[in-house]
């Protein structure tokens, strides 16, 4: 709290808004954990209003050299006319917190080269993620208005009033208006295009929630009203996963492919050329999510991203800066600093490693792993590259125990075991966390996962004896409590090399305490299908734990990366039409999850509820954590500026915020 107040003194321009947030949160925090659906309990504070930036808008802008000749010849308007009336100002602590980045004013020019595996560029998928509100790093706490110039959230988090930045333009120069929001809502509601209204814009993000009601006030201001409190929507507005496309689709562009707006005879030539047989499919193709904005079919699509696709072939991607990009730095330079982004297709991972080590990439935030550090360090000088070690938005692979497995069988042994916390605890105690860390991760990962138990095989044995697994079969393994053969079946897919290695280690640990364990490695698609069919007892997979707290990811969900209660989840999602009626302890998880979505995830109540969820996981052993958080490297050009500091808790800092990177003149 003191740091928040201190920063208010430093940046008086946002004092009012921050105080508003603090007040609203403090009042709400004084109350007990909200009960599901009774949001009216919290209507005691004023609405949250944020309409300021962290830094004043520069008085003068510096024209981009790349566009100088086009501006001179009149092909492009000058920078003042391209920018919004008040652009979003980037300085220290805006895109990344000051703790992790010593932000500097950069300079124009250069080309960023990124790796590309078979046409997929993780770096660009994130670099294109332009959020509607923006908080530093991977936070969704008290975000600044970004694409909008102000936002107001009603005290019960059910009504969101947003005002688009005046004069903000699509990459083709057409102004962004509420017509684009209206068009988005129209597409969402049109069953010819979207089979169902997206979950994230329904109340509480539930598939059966009533869609948010859109009210357009004028060209720039609109209101989204949910039928009940939906604080998680703050996180959706600040998350790079849905990003701006959640609310803004380029109406003027989409309409030319839409039969309700354009004569089908005018659309037909496009359909013929692209070999597409209906205009609906054409609209779906052109109405694209931001992670496709570097693909060939995105050429010509108006965007709000720092770079736009220029040429894309099956062997190279070239993007060029968006002349109408709406962010500037504190010194009046239009972002991005770097003019171009280039990405050459590689066919396999080894080629990417080799190219990274020979300095052919300026930013490589994906693929690099700790075990390749010697390669990058050895070649650092020759290739002019640097590496930085930091955390990740992913957590290392964990063991999921499926609490719905075999639930329909009468007297299921697995159900008896998995619902007995002593079984989960015994499994957790059998795992030598330090050994996992040293064997697989060079001892660089943390040990503070959601599993509180430490390595203690003796306790594991005692617990297993207590639950009736105290008899041995002829092979020397424990039988189940009924005296029959028992087998813990762990299934995984070769999605990452450490899945298999971890599986082998777990098998060894579990067999040491007498549990017969088998490890099945199957194809990743089969893995997904078997999980969906609730056929797997236990699985190994990673997830996005570091960004669960901010509400950016919620893949702790029972049917997400590793399925730990898929049938109960189905019951929850279908309101009891199908699936398994969850036992009380699982129902408690769903209650916590729903309650959490009522408030913004990083509000005090939201954080308290998230702590309850973590506690739930620790006590019910749906996930078992051999290690805690990852350490991964980013490989980058040594001349690059605004690079994150070592130890940053997440990764992807050089792509999510790529617009602030710049090249220093080579020494």
């Amino acid at each position: 709290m003191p740091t928040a107040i201190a920063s208010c003194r430093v940046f008086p321009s946002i004092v009012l808004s921050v105080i508003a947030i603090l007040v609203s949160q403090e009042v709400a925090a004084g109350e007990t954990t909200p009960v599901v659906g009774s949001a009216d309990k919290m209507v005691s504070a004023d609405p949250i209003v944020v309409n300021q930036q962290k830094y004043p808008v520069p008085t003068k802008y510096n024209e981009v050299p790349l566009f100088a000749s086009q501006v001179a010849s009149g092909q492009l308007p000058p920078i003042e006319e391209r920018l919004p009336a008040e652009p979003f100002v980037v300085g220290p602590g805006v895109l990344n917190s000051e703790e992790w980045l010593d932000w500097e004013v950069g300079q124009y020019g250069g080309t960023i080269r990124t790796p590309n595996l078979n046409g997929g560029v993780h770096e660009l998928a994130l670099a294109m993620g332009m959020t509607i509100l923006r908080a530093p790093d991977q936070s969704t706490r008290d975000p600044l208005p970004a694409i909008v110039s102000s936002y107001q959230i009603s005290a019960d988090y059910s009504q969101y009033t947003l005002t688009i930045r005046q004069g903000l333009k699509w990459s083709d120069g057409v102004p962004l208006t509420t017509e684009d929001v209206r068009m988005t809502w129209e597409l969402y509601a049109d069953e010819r295009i979207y089979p169902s209204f997206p979950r994230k814009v329904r109340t509480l993000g539930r598939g059966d929630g009533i869609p948010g009601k859109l009210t357009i006030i004028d060209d720039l201001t609109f209101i989204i009203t949910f039928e009940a409190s939906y604080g998680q929507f703050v996180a959706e507005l600040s998350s790079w996963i849905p990003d701006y496309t959640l609310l803004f689709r380029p109406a003027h562009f989409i309409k030319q492919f839409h039969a309700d707006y354009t004569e089908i005879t005018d659309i037909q030539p496009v359909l013929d050329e692209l070999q597409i047989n209906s205009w609906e499919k054409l609209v779906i193709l052109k109405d694209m999510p931001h992670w496709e904005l570097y693909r060939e079919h995105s050429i010509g699509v108006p965007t709000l991203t720092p770079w736009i696709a220029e040429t894309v072939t099956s062997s190279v991607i070239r993007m060029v800066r968006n002349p109408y990009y709406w962010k500037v730095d504190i010194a009046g330079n239009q972002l991005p600093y770097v003019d171009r982004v280039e990405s050459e297709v590689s066919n396999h991972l080894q080629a990417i490693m080799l190219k990274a080590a020979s300095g052919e990439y300026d930013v490589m935030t994906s693929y690099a792993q700790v075990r390749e550090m010697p390669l990058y360090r050895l070649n650092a000088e020759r290739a002019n590259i640097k590496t930085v070690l930091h955390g990740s938005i992913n957590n290392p692979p964990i063991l999921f125990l499926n609490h719905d497995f075999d639930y329909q069988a009468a007297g299921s042994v697995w159900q008896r075991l998995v619902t007995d916390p002593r079984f989960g605890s015994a499994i957790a105690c059998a795992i030598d966390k330090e050994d996992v860390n040293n064997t697989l991760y060079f001892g660089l990962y943390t040990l503070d996962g959601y599993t509180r138990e430490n390595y203690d095989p003796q306790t594991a044995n005692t617990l297993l004896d207590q639950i009736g697994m105290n008899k041995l079969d002829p092979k020397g393994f424990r039988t189940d409590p009924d005296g029959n053969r028992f087998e813990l079946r762990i299934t995984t897919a070769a999605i990452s090399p450490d899945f298999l290695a971890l599986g082998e280690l777990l098998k060894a640990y579990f067999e040491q305490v007498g549990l017969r364990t088998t490890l099945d490695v199957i194809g990743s698609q089969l893995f997904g299908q078997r999980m969906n069919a609730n056929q797997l007892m236990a699985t190994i997979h990673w997830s996005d734990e570091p960004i669960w707290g901010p509400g950016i990811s919620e893949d702790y969900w029972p049917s997400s990366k590793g399925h730990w209660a898929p049938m109960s989840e189905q019951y929850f999602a279908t309101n009891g039409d199908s699936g398994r009626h969850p036992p009380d302890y699982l129902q408690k998880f769903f209650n916590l999850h729903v309650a959490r979505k009522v408030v913004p995830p990083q509000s005090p109540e939201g954080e308290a509820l998230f702590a309850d969820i973590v506690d739930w996981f620790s006590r019910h052993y749906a996930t078992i954590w051999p290690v805690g958080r990852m350490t991964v490297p980013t490989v980058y050009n040594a001349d690059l500026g605004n690079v994150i500091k070592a130890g940053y808790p997440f990764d992807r800092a050089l792509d999510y915020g790529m617009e602030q990177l710049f090249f220093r003149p080579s020494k």
Partner: protein
Amino acid sequence: MTALIIRRIILIIPLLFIISIISFIIILLPPGSYVETYVENLERTGFLMDESQIKAIYKQYGLDRPAVVQYILWMSNFLLKGEMGRSFIYQKPVTEVIMERLPMSMAVTLISLAVTWLLAVPIGIYSALRQYSIGDYVATIIGFVGLALPNFLLALALTYLVFAKTGHAVTGLFSIEYKDAPWTVDKLFDLLGNIWLPILVIASAGTASLIRILRATLLDEKNKQYVTTARAKGLPEHKLILKYPVRVAINPLISTIGWTLPLIVSGEIIVSQTLGLETLGPVLLSAAMGEDMFLVGSIVMILSSLTVIGTLISDILLAWIDPRIRFDKVSI
């Protein structure tokens, strides 16, 4: 002869039809579909797609329809409009994807083939005529090593050597600035600077096996009576060798032309994959892994058709070059 060719061509039609069905079934065999792979890849990057978005993609690609309907639509478009469908991965018509890669596939394969023949034929002849000479042993050793060493391993080793020596990663046929540039002298030089490695790798195995085949056949032929007869008639030695036994010994080369034709299109898949060549091979592989069914289906169809056509051409060529075959066939 003409009747034979016509009969063979008529046989090709049902054959291609069967191939098309089999390749479609093979494409559908692996679990899941392109959309599942796509969603899964996104999830690995951290993106979780909304169910409604996923359903929209299924609809867009027509994957919500039964497999038989998908096949019939694909085939009818192919036959009626000459359209091979759209690639899911590249989001454009399959024909465009193939045309983008085809020229380099052809160039790499044809140049390697030329290098292979230019090296293998003289060395093979030399080896056979000077059997058990030092030169023959050297050629034999090189031949065996070339045969035994997998292409991709040689490619990896050479790539690593070049990287260790120069710090430059040899990958692809062009430097990045020329990848999509129009043809210029600079681009040509850039290509020449990069193409030697794949040519060397691809030609090595081909050369090795051809030397062995040519040597073996020529050894059989050179002691036959018609050679002795020709020599007795006073024909100069070089003319004699080239005109009679070599002409027969070249038959295995001709009969494998049929397999060269699909290779011209696909390029050496594994070497292309290892070296990141801009040929059609890596596109086929990644399309197969990504379950981009119309792209895979179309490439497999093209390759199968070319194999069938290539075999036909081989047969015709053989009949033309080798009178024995010609007369045999006619007498059938």
